[in-house]
């Protein structure tokens, strides 16, 4: 803990199940606490610790109110480098926790005025946390992204001798090119749907994330699918085999796999319709 003179806030990284007396002799909450104690967390010099809240355990860290208060936080997260540092620090704690126990990740910068407020918040949403924990236990999130190359279509149009001579020929060519582009786009979307369907077949839950814009992907390709899937831990091999087969069949698209992630995209599983 910090010296009491420095006002602090409670930063919450994640929520796990608590180690009540009904739990096994392994005392998962204690194991969790030990495993996290060495982490730097947000680098505030205070330990990452566990906070019991009924049947749940929050993974928290005291952060100075001066550095994480409303205005300071806004400034902090408006700075790109600092945003990245915080996001990676947040991710490191969540990843470490999820190795030790089923973990519901919370969004970046989930802050409470003190521990008691954290406990109240967890109590209020106890059922949905327990539901989410049941759902993600023994499972991991995988990300699948599908890209379509945006290069010029392989138009095998014969370069006729005086093609530019006739306006009509020109218009025909423009139209043909547009049609082939639209056709390719449709094909790409269908291919992405086939990928989604195949991976969904292995997953217990799926979620579409926002595809990235050209600023992220670069001009040479379009992001057509950004999806997250929740898979049982034993199915990684099947997933990889399915993707290998899809890559073989779907030659018009690029398929990228990332993971395993802590189940970020399925934390609200208990509350969404």
């Amino acid at each position, binding site marked *: 803990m910090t010296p009491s003179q420095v006002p602090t806030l409670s930063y919450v990284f994640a929520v796990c199940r608590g180690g009540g007396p009904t739990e096994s002799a392994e005392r998962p909450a204690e194991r969790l606490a030990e495993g996290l104690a060495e*982490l730097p967390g947000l680098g505030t010099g205070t330990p990452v610790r566990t906070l019991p809240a009924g049947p749940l355990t929050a993974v928290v860290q005291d952060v100075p109110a001066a550095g994480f208060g409303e205005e300071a936080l806004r400034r902090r997260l408006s700075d790109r480098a600092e945003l990245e540092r915080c996001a990676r620090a947040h991710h490191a704690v969540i990843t470490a926790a999820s190795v030790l126990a089923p973990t519901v990740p919370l969004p970046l910068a*989930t802050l409470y005025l003190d521990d008691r407020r954290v406990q109240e918040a967890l109590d209020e949403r106890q059922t949905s946390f327990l539901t989410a924990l049941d759902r993600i236990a023994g499972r991991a999130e995988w990300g699948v992204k599908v890209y379509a190359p945006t290069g010029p279509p392989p138009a095998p149009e014969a370069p006729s001798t005086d093609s530019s001579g006739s306006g009509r020929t020109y218009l025909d060519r423009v139209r043909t090119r547009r049609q082939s582009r639209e056709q390719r786009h449709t094909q790409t979307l269908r291919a992405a749907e086939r990928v989604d369907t195949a991976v969904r077949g292995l997953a217990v839950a799926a979620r579409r994330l926002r595809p990235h814009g050209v600023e992220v992907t670069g001009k040479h390709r379009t992001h057509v699918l950004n999806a997250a899937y929740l898979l049982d831990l034993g199915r990684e091999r099947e997933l990889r085999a399915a993707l290998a087969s899809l890559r073989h069949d779907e030659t018009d698209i690029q398929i990228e796999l990332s993971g395993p992630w802590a189940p970020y995209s399925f934390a609200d599983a208990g509350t969404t319709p």
Partner: protein
Amino acid sequence: MTGASWETAPAKALWEAAPAATARKAAPDWGTTPAESLGPLGVPLVDLLDRVLATGVVITGDLVIAIAEVPLVRLSLHALLSSVNERVQAPWTDSGPL
């Protein structure tokens, strides 16, 4: 998990091959990072932000409420992110993931 648990096509050479220890060494100094494996830290920032920002309506923190009735922090982060993306290439395209 081995290094092979992360794969991407073009970005692959840039960050998949880097062992976690290397990625961590290149990471901003968060203090003393313990040596044990924490999983993939060299994750592309966009993929990470997709998750750490967009995740979860499970809970709402005091501060988020304090800033506005809506989670303004998250909204402004999305705005920030898109403006960052307009100006700067994804960070790993030129210098690796970290």
